[in-house]
């Protein structure tokens, strides 16, 4: 299989003398940095840490579900496991994953800017994230929380004596971290574009992050106030959600899902951005229907705000509002379909190579297609009645979040790793990891669709014995999946020291980030570039290369 990997001659290759990594030394130069690239690395380290903690809980959950009896841990411990798994994975991993690491690193560079608009707020948002993370760990160490990540009232306010307020504070604080990241991105994208970088010359990764940022900025505050009210209801005893005082617990659900449904798009949109970059690069082709893909991101963001009540179809919302929300849910599925077909069509008449990021991207498209289409089951009112709150839901959103987002995150990490670190990871091992992840994923979550239709409820510590076979399959798959996630962790760490020198543009990609050295210098560009070409212009890149060869040679 031929490859477009164009690494420099390893005997003579060196990393750039001055880059953002070695520009300053000492731990303080990291902790007080305003450099978006360094903050991205800080984020990368922290979210990886939390990913593995959240993953450990997932492992424990699957282990417990190996047998129908509640035998590994006590019920409340099990409940704490899935609560912690949810809180950590959603608020501390998925929401910040691509935007805060890759987005933070790349958006200014892709726009031709020296940094995000507000570097200090960027650093502040990392600190808020760390405070949120620390509070979560505090809640965990003090004895855990067992509300489920949804904090359903009145269960969370009146019927549990775990550390709900600590966890709520953690989410509140982490929420502000996400608001500030989104705000920074939006301002940067509006105000910091290099001369000539018009909206429709921006890489699709930027478009996707822009859409996600809109959701972060508009949605997260609503979660914040809902969570404040829960905390106040628990501590002081105000009565806004308390049915015994005349409050309406369904109001909480409305406020909560008003954020938490868009949050799903906060999680997936940046991943879609990554996939657009990867597919384009390894097809050597401009993304098919650039405008359609860009606008579909924005459409998802806009429609995403008006579908929240589809989480409440069986809760006695009026039939007519259920109809409206079901219809809107169907509409929000369309832009995702458009994207999928555009990615597929990009391959047509391309010149494809299959590097690791491309394999992950293929995995993404496959799994996301299944994840998206099973979402239609749940948007379809009558079907939702049977499927909601079962393992079908669990399988569906793991297909989107893990099969989709995590695959995209790994695609992005493998794609930009040479840019982040200046070094290359072992190619064959990383391909193996991509394949193992894919197989492990299918094995883990496919059985859960069947379990869901059989009616196995989610968040069950014990289950009827007839569900065991499928659960064992799922647990077995989770083991494979775990290996698939450990592998990149190991070889990426290895590559930091021993990896081949990557050179500026190992993939021969077109983005601005590939035109500067790897790792980039602290100020990104010595001279702010003037952009007089469209995104994904591979012909121009070829010409430049030829020109270079003739003039130099």
């Amino acid at each position: 299989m031929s490859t477009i990997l164009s690494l420099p001659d390893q005997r003579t290759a060196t990393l750039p003398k001055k880059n953002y990594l070695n520009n300053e030394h000492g731990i303080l130069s990291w902790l007080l940095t305003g450099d978006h690239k360094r903050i991205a690395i800080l984020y990368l380290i922290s979210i990886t840490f939390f990913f593995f903690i959240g993953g450990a809980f997932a492992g424990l959950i699957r282990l417990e579900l190996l047998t129908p009896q509640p035998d590994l841990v006590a019920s409340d411990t099990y409940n704490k496991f899935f609560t912690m798994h949810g809180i950590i994975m959603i608020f501390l991993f998925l929401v910040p994953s691509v935007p805060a690491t890759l987005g933070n690193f790349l958006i200014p560079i892709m726009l031709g800017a020296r940094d995000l608009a507000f570097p200090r707020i960027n650093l502040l948002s990392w600190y808020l994230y760390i405070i949120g993370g620390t509070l979560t760990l505090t809640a965990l160490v003090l004895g855990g929380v067992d509300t489920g990540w949804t904090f359903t009232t009145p269960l969370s306010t009146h019927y549990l004596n775990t550390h709900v307020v600590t966890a709520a504070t953690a989410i509140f604080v982490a929420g502000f971290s996400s608001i500030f990241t989104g705000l920074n991105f939006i301002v940067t994208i509006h105000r910091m574009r290099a001369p000539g970088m018009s909206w429709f010359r921006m890489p699709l990764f930027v478009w996707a992050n822009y859409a996600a940022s809109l959701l972060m900025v508009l949605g997260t505050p609503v979660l914040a106030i809902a969570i404040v009210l829960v905390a106040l209801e628990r501590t002081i005893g105000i009565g806004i959600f308390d049915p015994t005082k005349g409050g309406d617990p369904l109001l909480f659900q409305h406020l909560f899902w008003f954020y938490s449904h868009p949050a799903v798009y906060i999680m997936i949109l940046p991943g879609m951005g990554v996939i657009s970059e990867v597919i384009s690069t390894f097809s050597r082709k401009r993304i098919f229907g650039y405008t359609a893909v860009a606008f579909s991101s924005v459409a998802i963001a806009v429609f995403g705000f008006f579908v929240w009540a589809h989480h409440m179809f069986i809760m006695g919302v009026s039939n007519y509002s259920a109809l409206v929300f079901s219809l809107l849910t169907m509409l929000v599925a369309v832009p995702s379909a458009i994207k999928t077909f555009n990615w597929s069509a990009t391959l047509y008449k391309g010149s494809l190579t299959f590097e690791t990021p491309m394999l992950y991207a293929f995995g993404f498209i496959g799994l996301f297609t299944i994840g998206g289409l099973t979402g239609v089951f749940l948007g379809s009112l009558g079907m939702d009645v049977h499927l909601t709150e079962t393992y079908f839901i669990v399988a569906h959103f793991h297909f989107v979040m893990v099969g989709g987002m995590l695959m995209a995150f790994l695609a992005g990490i493998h794609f930009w790793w040479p840019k982040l670190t200046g070094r290359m990871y072992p190619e064959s091992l990383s391909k193996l990891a991509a394949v193992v992840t894919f197989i492990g994923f299918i094995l883990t979550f496919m059985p859960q669709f069947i379990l869901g239709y059989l009616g196995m409820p989610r968040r069950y510590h014990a289950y009827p014995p007839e569900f065991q076979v499928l659960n064992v399959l799922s647990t077995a798959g989770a083991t494979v999946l775990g290996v698939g996630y450990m592998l990149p962790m190991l070889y990426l760490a290895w590559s930091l020291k021993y990896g081949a020198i990557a050179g500026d543009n190992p993939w021969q990609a077109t983005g601005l980030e590939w035109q500067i050295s790897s790792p980039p210098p602290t100020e990104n560009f010595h001279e702010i570039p003037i952009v007089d070409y469209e995104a994904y212009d591979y012909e121009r890149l070829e010409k430049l290369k030829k020109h270079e060869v003739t003039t130099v040679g």
Partner: protein
Amino acid sequence: MGISPVLWQFLIKWLHSSALFPAEASTIAPYADALYFFLLLMTLVGTVIVAILLVTFSLRYRAEKNPVATQIEGSTLLEATWTIIPLAIFLVCFVWGALLYFRIYSPPANSMNIYVVGKQWMWKAEHPGGQHEINALHVPMGKPVQLTMISQDVFHSFSVPDFRVKREVIPGRYTTVWFNATTPGTYHIFCTQYCGTLHSGMIGEVTVMTPSDYEKWTQESTSGMSLAQNGERIFASMGCNACHNGTAAARGPNLAGVYGSKMQLTDGRQVLVDDAYLRDAILNPSQHVTAGYAPIMPTYQGQISEEGLIDLIEYLKNLNSNYRVQQTLNTSQSNATAPETAPGVKP
């Protein structure tokens, strides 16, 4: 459904016996399954199309075979195609799903009613005839059964997968669900909304019986007092009959035959008197003052349990004349020195 009933039966039986598919035990189930298979087909076709595109292009346009990519800007026609076709399919799913939803949540008029109270972590079923069950539910085959449900504490969700029905059980308001079981046997009841520590222990069994067996069961397991009779005792012991006695001078409106009627309220609203209205009027009387009466009724919030409220509602449903109310009034006045506590009244 498009495929022959025999094939359908065979398919379902085969899937069910390999533990890949739930039993079809209610009249709703085949409708739900038909939509399920349609959606499954849609997913399969969608995934296969995408997979074929990926694989074909990967083989045909890999760099060795096609070293130079041809730049294509896009195609409005194609964009429109893959916007409109998925949209059309999704709209079919929407309409089909909506029809099914209305079928699932619109009980037939002749359905029999059973009350269900959810609490951490058990299901209490109350039959109008006075049969009380915990984590079990006995229903006759071939008769539509409506469940009127309420939670005593947190959100629960009543789910019978083999019937393909489910409904959230919410504190402070009644929700209903109905089914018509078709096959005798026992089926799982799950609580599907996370409700605290023993959420996974909040399970039960619904037993579907032939009408004759069910008849036998009701006779053997009655507690001797129907819900309406319990309600009558509460009605008397809470002193409801002091005002709602149907006499001309009564301070409260006449309640005989009130269930199912339209009532005019002082604030001008006209309301249908149903379970939810009665419950609300007992707990929050000042918001439901009948036209022509003074807002003097005290609230019974915190004084009657959910079961007690159900008893009262069941009593009012069956109250056709005030004869017995007035009778009770006389006896309770004469027995005023030794009031008895009715079951369902909080001590």
